[in-house]
């Protein structure tokens, strides 16, 4: 073999090795419109970074949560990027399970992130997950029904206004219900909604000594108000309605009002899916004049688990997917209304976006009024608006959500549901070492 052919062979071998060393990022994500769009548009990233391959694992939210929690807790290293929410970030960062994202590059403009979202994803001032889209909750209502009844929805309604309007707009014989709210048991379903609502009634989960507060008059007022309102003005079988069921009811014109995630705004205003797309108005989540509104705060975010072998490539991808340029890329391909909302201040200063998304200002106001560090009227020892960022919360809130759901269905009383909730949480807190 001549020197020439030998060097050619070595060259070919080196080239193969170089090709083989292309990094592959495994990205675990949830099934929603924004995430699927990111998957579709990721060719733009791979053409800029030919040395990085992307593999997508899309799962239903609860399956994903169980899956990534097992992996990160055992340092399985199956994923390089995980999609997690504001609930997981403080807990996982404190366990040293996440890589700090304080160096996403000069162009990233971390100061542009909306302050409540950034705060919810940071621990001791360090960002541990980059927000992909943020959401709060707000009132969605039928402008046509309100006009007909001569009721005017204020931008910032109170709970008593909402309750009066709901009762007035209910016509059960014609399957017209004044209000649709979550009733299905689950920590991300009715427990999230009622925790956020309780904040506006002055209730809280725990006092500063981690003593559960379900025996307080504020919780009694919250739950009694909710059960009475739903019995008078809610749809039948509301105790099994979650986000999707209420979405279907609202889109088919059965609900005059629906208080839920801001992300629903894009669904209910879509003429292809919604029969009421032309007549939907938005207002801030209600309050009782105690200084807190009943809206929550959530951000689906991208984080790098500590077990990843491709930290630098993962950070490069995250910086791309959560950048201002990505928002512009979505706008260019699918229009401004499809841009993932609720993460960057600059988006809400963009005239094109404000024109394309009629719910933009209300989403921004809702997010800005949420304070994950001080969610309740009185001080609390935990972070989180519609959740308590402790590992015990998922199991506990699901059990308590079942009690609330039973109170709504009428199989238990409000008092009994709260007594059981108090007992359950005292036991769990004692077990977890929060209480002696």
């Amino acid at each position, binding site marked *: 073999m001549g020197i020439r052919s030998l060097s050619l062979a070595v060259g070919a071998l080196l080239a193969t090795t170089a090709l083989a060393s292309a990094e592959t990022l*495994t990205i*675990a994500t*949830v*099934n*929603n*419109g924004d995430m*699927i769009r990111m*998957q579709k548009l990721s060719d733009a990233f791979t053409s800029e970074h030919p040395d990085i391959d992307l*593999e*997508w*694992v*899309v*799962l*239903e*939210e*609860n*399956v994903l949560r*169980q*899956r990534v929690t*097992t*992996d990160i*807790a*055992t*340092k*399985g*290293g*199956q*994923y390089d990027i995980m999609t997690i929410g504001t609930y997981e970030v403080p807990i996982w960062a404190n366990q040293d399970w996440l890589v700090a994202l304080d160096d996403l590059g000069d162009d990233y403009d971390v100061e542009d992130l909306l302050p409540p979202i950034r705060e919810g994803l940071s621990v001791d001032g360090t960002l541990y997950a980059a927000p992909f889209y943020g959401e709060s909750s707000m009132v969605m209502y039928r402008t046509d029904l309100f006009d007909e009844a001569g009721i005017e929805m204020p931008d910032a309604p109170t709970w008593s206004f909402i309750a009066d309007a709901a009762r007035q707009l209910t016509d059960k014989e014609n399957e017209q219900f004044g209000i649709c709210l979550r009733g299905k048991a689950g920590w*991300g*379903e009715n427990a999230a909604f009622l925790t956020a609502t309780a904040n506006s009634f002055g209730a809280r989960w725990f006092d500063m000594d981690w003593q559960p507060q379900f025996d307080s008059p504020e919780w009694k007022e919250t739950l009694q108000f909710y059960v009475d309102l739903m019995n008078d003005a809610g749809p039948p079988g509301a105790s099994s309605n*979650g*986000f*999707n069921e209420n*979405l*279907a*009811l609202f*889109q*088919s014109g*059965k609900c005059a009002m629906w208080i839920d*995630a801001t*992300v*629903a705004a894009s*669904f209910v205003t879509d003429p*292809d*899916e*919604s029969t009421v797309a032309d007549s939907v108005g938005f207002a801030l989540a209600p309050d009782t004049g105690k200084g807190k509104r009943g809206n929550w705060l959530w951000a689906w975010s991208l984080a790098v688990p500590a077990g990843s072998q491709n930290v630098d490539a993962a950070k490069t991808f995250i910086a791309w997917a959560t950048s201002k340029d990505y928002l512009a890329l979505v706008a260019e391909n699918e229009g401004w209304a499809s841009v993932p909302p609720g993460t960057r201040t600059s988006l809400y200063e963009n005239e094109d976006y404000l024109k394309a998304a009629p719910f933009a200002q209300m989403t921004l106001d809702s997010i800005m009024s949420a304070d994950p560090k001080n969610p309740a009227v009185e001080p609390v020892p935990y972070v989180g608006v519609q959740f308590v960022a402790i590992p015990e919360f998922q199991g506990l809130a699901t059990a308590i959500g079942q009690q609330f759901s039973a109170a709504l269905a009428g199989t238990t009383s409000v008092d009994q549901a709260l007594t059981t909730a108090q007992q359950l949480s005292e036991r769990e807190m004692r077990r977890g070492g929060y209480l002696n």
Partner: protein
Amino acid sequence: MARELSPRRRATLTTAAWTIGFLIFFPVLWTFLTSFKTEGEAIAIPPSFLFFDWTLENYSEVQERSNYLRHAMNSVIIAFGSTFLGLLVAIPAAWSMAFSPTKSTRGILMWMLSTKMLPPVGALVPIYLICRDLGLLDTRSALVVILMLMNLPIIVWMLFTYFREIPGDILEAARMDGASLRKEITYVLVPMAVPGIASTLLLNVILAWNEAFWTLNLTADDAAPLSAFIASYSSPEGLFWAKLSAASTLAIAPILVLGWFSQKQLVRGLTFGAVK
């Protein structure tokens, strides 16, 4: 011979059987129909049964977003692999329990069944750690072994019940003719127990096909079967029922076809004894 039935009673029974059959089949039919609707029609109240604009859009989107064939191939390998491996282990085990029982046979059978009483999530972390340390996370071989172990008690129990009905004298006759143990099992027992083995095989393939705990928790991308494919179309915040229905239809189609063609064997194996 079947008992004579009066025409009226016969008609009533036939109607009842068809009604029950239709009720059981209805969710599958509804999923199938929904897969051809638009997302708006899928959630419409009142729902439309047959008169809507039929569309293949959901199927094309599912094809575009996911690699269906790879997921289906993983399902086939995992379901059949674990079942065949299970039969390989279970046939000798059931033979020994059926034809040379000891005092502890019954106890062993009960103990095997008791392993099914542990909720799988209780064993998740240890098994995950074992797979991680052996480099078996996201591999089909790990799932073949784990699903085999999961379903082994059922396979052994089913085969044991079939084998017990085979007269021991036949096996003894084979032994008298000089058949070795291997020959006795391969040439005498197995051919006589074919209906039983076939129905065990089919039932276990279906169980392994539908398994959605280990297959979701131990895979990421390479080994993800159809359970992961369906899970990627479900969402608690967003009504994607038409796409989910299309994904579900694609996921159940192969097993439905298999069940359809083998229903005779399946029913025979489940309702009759091995040699009746």
